[in-house]
Every structure is written in structure tokens, then in C-alpha cells.
């Protein structure tokens, strides 16, 4: 399936941005620079999603990754990291590099040598019609209310509901609610667990633990110091 030149340029540009920033993340000694580069990399990935006709996923990417996770990383860096120390190189770098190259080689080899089924392999005429030609009405009953069309030249699904053009978001929503509802609910549960776990880890230690005694001693010293200064 041919795509337009613009799409190609956009694709390669977005890839270059992603990979470039990723390189900065893994090589820069200064952790703050790494954090900023990470945000840039996430942005690149978002653009890539748009190029791949996954609009909803792209939006989610920008909202969650660029908006939340990058900020989280920046917070962590500012709170904890001794910025002057940075992230110094580690002894096993070469081995790691070799391993990374190995992974790349493995996946690349697989990708290139596999005979991928393309959209051209679809034989069912209705499917072809749905995916390539215009409006197709399918069956009766509940499903009949959904008409799926696809503009020419792409596999982007457009769901038409009573004449209103909608993008893949709706179809995705229906998918999540109907086919993948179990996974959806479990993800919710997982996030609750993550929340609780995070709170647990960050909790102040109890009144009889060492850290509490330490804090108390610090507080006393401070109080004494401040009293003395007063």
C-alpha cells in the first residue's frame, strides 16, 4: 500500500527525533539534561503515533508521558539527585552495548525475514469494501447501526454513525468496552494497587523506628539551634 511522500518524511523525521533524544538520555552524564531529553523523546513518539493513524494513542501518549511522567522524572531529579555528581559511567558499559546491539540485530533480522501479512491479503470482499471503499452497511440488529467506511488509500477506520464522521477513537472505545472489558477493569485495579503501594513506600516511618528517632533528634537539634539563635 503506497503512502504519500509527506507521510514518509513525517515518519522519518519523527523517528530521528525520537532516537536522537533517546541517545541523549542514555549517554549524557548530566541527569537533568537526560530528563529533558526524555521529554523530547516522548514527544517524538507521540508524533510517530499520529503518523501511524493512531490518533487516540498519540493523544494519550502526550498527555500521560510528556505531561505526567516527564514531570515526575524532573521532580525526582530535583529532589534527590546530587546534580553535581551526575550519572557516571558504569564498568559494564561495553557488555551492555554489545547486548543492545544483539537485541537490535535479533529483532531486525526477524522483522526483515518474516513474511508479514499485509492488508492486501484480505480476501473477504465485504472486509475489503469496508476497509477500502466507502460506506458499507452490515447486517441488521444492533450491529446494523454501525457503518464502517474507510477512505481510499488508508486502512484508517472511520466509523460513521448516522452520517457523522468519527475517527478510530470511537471504535477503540467500543473495543475496550466490549472485547477487552476484563483487561480494562484489571488495569483500573492495578492503578489502585500502584497508588496504595506508592503511598506505603513514601509513608513517614512510625514513632518507634530509627528514622523517626533520627528525625526527632534532628528536630531537637534544630529547635535547640533556633532557640539559641533567638
Amino acid at each position, binding site marked *: 500500500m503506497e503512502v504519500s511522500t509527506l507521510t514518509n518524511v513525517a515518519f522519518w523525521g519523527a523517528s530521528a527525533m525520537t532516537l536522537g533524544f533517546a541517545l541523549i538520555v542514555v549517554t549524557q552524564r548530566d541527569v537533568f539534561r537526560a530528563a529533558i531529553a526524555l521529554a523530547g523523546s516522548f514527544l517524538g513518539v507521540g508524533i510517530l503515533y499520529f503518523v501511524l493513524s493512531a490518533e487516540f494513542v498519540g493523544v494519550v501518549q502526550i498527555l500521560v508521558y510528556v505531561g505526567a511522567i516527564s514531570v515526575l522524572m524532573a521532580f525526582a531529579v530535583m529532589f534527590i539527585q546530587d546534580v553535581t555528581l551526575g550519572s557516571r559511567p*558504569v564498568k*559494564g558499559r561495553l*557488555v*551492555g552495548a554489545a*547486548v543492545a546491539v*544483539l*537485541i537490535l540485530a*535479533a529483532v531486525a*533480522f526477524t522483522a526483515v525475514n518474516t513474511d508479514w501479512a499485509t492488508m492486501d491479503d484480505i480476501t473477504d470482499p465485504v472486509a475489503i469494501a469496508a476497509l477500502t471503499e466507502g460506506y458499507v452497511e452490515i447486517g441488521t440488529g444492533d450491529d446494523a447501526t454501525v457503518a464502517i467506511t474507510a477512505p481510499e488509500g488508508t486502512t484508517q477506520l472511520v466509523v460513521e454513525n448516522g452520517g457523522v464522521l468519527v475517527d478510530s477513537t470511537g471504535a477503540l472505545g467500543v473495543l475496550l468496552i466490549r472485547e477487552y472489558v476484563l483487561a480494562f477493569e484489571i488495569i483500573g485495579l492495578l492503578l489502585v494497587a500502584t497508588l496504595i503501594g506508592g503511598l506505603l513506600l513514601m509513608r513517614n516511618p512510625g514513632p518507634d523506628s530509627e528514622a523517626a528517632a533520627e528525625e526527632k533528634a534532628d528536630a531537637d537539634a534544630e529547635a535547640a539551634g533556633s532557640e539559641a539563635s533567638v
Partner: protein
Amino acid sequence: MITEGLAWLIIALPVISLVVNGVFVRAFIGSESKYAGYITVAAIGGSFVLSIWALLTVMSDGPLLFEKRDWIAVGGLNLTFGLILDQLTVIMLIVVSGVSLLVQIYGQAYMHGDKSYTRYYAYMSLFTASMLGLVLSRNMVQMFVFWELVGISSYLLIGFWMDRPSAAAAAKKAFLMTRFGDFGFLLGILYLYSVNPAYMDIETLYNAIAAEEIAVAVATWVALGLFAGAVGKSAQFPLHSWLPDAMEGPTSVSALIHSATMVTAGVFLVARFFPLFEYSDAMTLVALVGGFTAVFAATMGLVATDIKRVLAYSTISQLGYMMLALGIGAYAPAIFHLFTHAFFKAALFLGAGSVHHASGTFNMKYMGGLKRHMPWTYWSMIIASVSLAGLFPFSGFWSKDEILGHAAEVGTTTATIVLALGLIAALMTAFYMFRAIFLTFHGEWRGGGEREDEEAKAAGEPAPVGNKHSHLAESPWLMIGPVALLAVLAIVVGFFSNPTVDVGPIDKHAFAHFVTVENEVVFPTEHAAVEAGAEPTFNFVVAGASTVLALAGVGLAYLMYIRGSISPVAVGARLQPVYRLIFRKYYVDELYEDQLVRRGFYRYIADGVRWFDEHWIDNANVHLYTWISRIGKSGALVQNGQTQTYAVGMVIGVVAIVAGFLLWG
């Protein structure tokens, strides 16, 4: 007509006396009880009577083969056992039980006062029972069992005076050397068994040989194996050196087992399997070994100083005669010589015991002039010596000359060689025997046991074991009696059992006929019997030659030891290297003891195996543990606590799985 039960009783009586002596008398009465002697003499006397009865039966009815009975029938192993009473067996029964009886009677006086008297008679009973069982056996394996029992009895009897280290060593040497031969015997049996298990039974074997069902090569190997056993037991070269050392045992023991019975077991074995030997290609070897041994042993007897050792070498030499006779096919003369030899050799040994009793020593250098003090012993020993030397008309003449005559008649190369060897040995036999007699009985008394001990002490050496105070008088009747009786038999048995002409009720060549022609089991055809010496012709030339040689030997001994015209010392000095070689018994003992045993076996084989065991096998678990722990430790190096190392490990693992899928689907 003897029944099977009575035939078994021949063996059973000495066994009973063994058990009674060994268990009851020793435990309840004492280890020095004279009842042991009475019981044994009674038992063996009973066996002797039964043997005579067996002889009469066989003489009138021919050979008897009692039934074979099942012994072991397990899986593929099927052995039978039983008794065979043919002429050969019956002759051996007479010899064994007769000589044993006389020796037991003699022992009553000779072993009088010994602190292990009971044990002595128990062992003597064991030996007699084993030997009788051996000659009566019908199955090769059964024979082997008794053969080994004979070996054990010999060990026990040679080492009878256990507290003497030399006796213990001699017993061990005897047992180990004969074991060597027995190993060959066992290999022969096993090989024959593997060819056909039914051949273990002797009658079956004879029939198979007559029908030529066995391959000649098979027969030869089996014969060689059997001959190995015979070489061991009969002290032929190269397994001869145990017999002179075996003189450490009591003299009566030597008289019984090392002159008349046990050592003849080897000759008996070859005779029993004579058809097998004839059928195979091993006869030449038998003859040559026998002939060589006859001369070889005789040379060593020329220079021995211990009277018992002279007799031991003489025994080896005479056994060589018997072997060479069998080797050239002279079956009847060989058995005849066995028969006559038993009597005069036993007489000589028992006489030597009397001499020891009187002079306190066995060393002839310290004897002399005993003729005056013990005339009965003297004359008996003279008679026996003349018989041994083979002078007309004593029994040794007849038997030895039949052998030599047969050799001359056969005329093959082997036979001519052994004829020459036999004549040389005859000369030497006469010489050494009369040298011994002259040194012992003639001349001046040279001090005896006391003087030997004194001189040894003065020279700083230990006194010889077994010497006692001299007692220059004739021995008690219990000792002279058997000696004299045996001497008489040595005179008459020769001519009257195998005369060259018909003498009254005794047929011409009765003995020879008896063991060959009438023995249909072994010699099924008349022709085979004749071949085996049933009709020995009297060869005047050979007889004359041997008599001349014997007389020459006697004369030489006379000149050297009585007249003193030829000084033995001078002769020894002239032939110094030869003298030394013979005196040291051709260094055979050193060869065996030092080279073979100490160096070859102990150092190379035993030490080598020990090194391997210590370093490899004992250390195997240490090595195992070391290696496993090293491998484990090297594996643990991966755990260095660094998270990133573990991450790398995981990634490598994933890549490996992916690669696996890629490459091998």
C-alpha cells in the same frame, strides 16, 4: 567281590579317624594321647585290608566301574561323581594304604613324646583319606577336589612343627608352588569342560578318545594343563624346589608323602589320563621333562650334606624316570617303577629317621660309624640303596631296566635322548646313594648332633633346628620293623610281581599284564596294551649297561669315601665352579625368590597397583569434590550483587531464546 559301599569305606575309615582324632581325642583326652596313634593305625589297617580285597576282586573279575551319581545339577552345570576300581587304582590303593600303615606304625615310636602327637595322627589320616579318594575318583572335578585336599594335607604336615619359621616357610613354598601347577590343572579341566561337559567323567572320556571324537589340538592343550599339575605335585623341573625344603617336616611325613604317595600323584594323573596323553602331541614334552629332571636332580644329590635332602633329590630323580617312561609310552614299566620305588624309598626315609634318632642330626658330616650301633637299620638301608641303584636282582633293577629297555625298543629320537639321560642318571644315583650310606654308616663317629651345635655356636651361627642328643643305639622295634619289612619287599617285589618267566602260580609279566591287558577300560584293544608295555622284552644290552654304570657309581663312592684314594675335597676344588653351581642348586631358588617374587611381583605389580589405588582410587573422591566445588564456585561468580549485571543476564537470556526460535524454529 567288593561292593561299592566297601569301596567308599576305604576312604571313609581314615576320615573317621581324622574326625575322632581331631575333634574328640584332641578335645577330650589330650593332644599327646597315644590313642590317636592306635585309632589311626586301626583305620588305615582297615583300609589296607579292604584294598587287598579290592585287589583280589579286580584280579579275578577285571576292572570295576561303579555307578556315576549326580553331584551338582544346577542350571547348565552337571557333574557326576563315583568310584572307579581298575587295575591302576587298585595298585595305587595297595601302595598308599600299605605304606601309610607302615609309616603310622613307625610313627608311634618316632613321634613318641611330641607335644602334638594327636594332631599328627589327625593330619596323617586326612592325608591318607585324600590320597585314597584321589585314586578312586571317577570324575575329573572330584579328582581335583581330592588333589587339593592332598595339597592341604601336605602343607599341614610339612609345617607340622609350626613354631619353626623354616618349617612354616617351607610349607608355604610347597603349597604355593604346587598351586601354580594346580592352576594349570584347573585350566585343563575347564577347557575340557567347555568342549564337552560330559568328558569330566573318565569313562566317557576314554570312550570319546577311543572313538576319536576329540580334536588332537584340544587334547594337547588339556594334556598340557594336566601335566602342569603333575609337574607341580611330582616336583619336576621347574617346579621342583619345594621338595628339598619340604624335608623340614617330620621324617615319617617325608617317608609317606614325599617318597611314596603324594609326589606320585602326579605320575598317577598322567597314567590315569594316559589315553588322552597318547592321543595328543604332549608326550614328547612329558618324556623330555622327566628325563631332564632325572639328571638335574641327581646332580644336586651328589653334593648334598643333609641325608634327607639326598633322598629328596633322589625322589625327584626317580619321579623323572617315571615321567619319562610315561612320555615314551611305557605305561606298565612306569607303574611298575612307581610300585617298587614306593617300597625302597619309604624304607630309606624311615631308615633316615632312625639315623636321626641315633645321631641327633641329619647332617652327614657329623655322622659316621653307625654301622656298629644299628645293624638292622644299616642292612635295611643297604638293601634299599642297592635296589635304588638298580642292581640285579633287587626290585629296582627290574623296574628301571624295563623303562630303559622300552626306550631302546621304541627307538625314536626322544626315546634315545631319554635313554641316554636315564643311563647318566643311573650312574649318578648309585654314586650319591652310596656316598650317603658310606658317610653315614662307615668310618669314624664324628660327633653327631652335639658336635654340630658346638661348632655352630663357635662360628657364631645358630644351631640347626631339630638337632638333639645322640643316642648311639638301635631304634625301637616299632621303628625297625617297618624299615626291615620294606627292605624285604624291596628285594622280592620286583622279581616276583613281574617276572620274566613263569614262576609257579605267577604268570610271566603278571604285573605288566595286570595293568595293561586286563584293564579293558583304559586299553580297550590288545594292541594298545602291547604298545603300552605289556610284553616288555628284556634288553640285555641296556640292562648290562645300566648295571655296569651302577657298579661304577658304587665303586667311585667306595673309593672316595671309604678308601679315601680319591679325595672328595680335591675333586671339589678341581671342579670348583661346577661344584658351586650344583651346591647352590643351580640358583633356581634365588631366581624364583628374588627375581620373580620380590622384584617382579612385589615391586612392579604390587607396588604399582598400590600406587594406583592410593593416588587415583582413594583420591577419586577428593578429586571429585575439588572439581565439583571449583565448577560451583565459578558459577557463583555471576552473583556479584550488581543489579545491572543481572539485567544484562536477563537480556542475554531473552536474546538467546529469540535466536533459538529464529535459527531452529
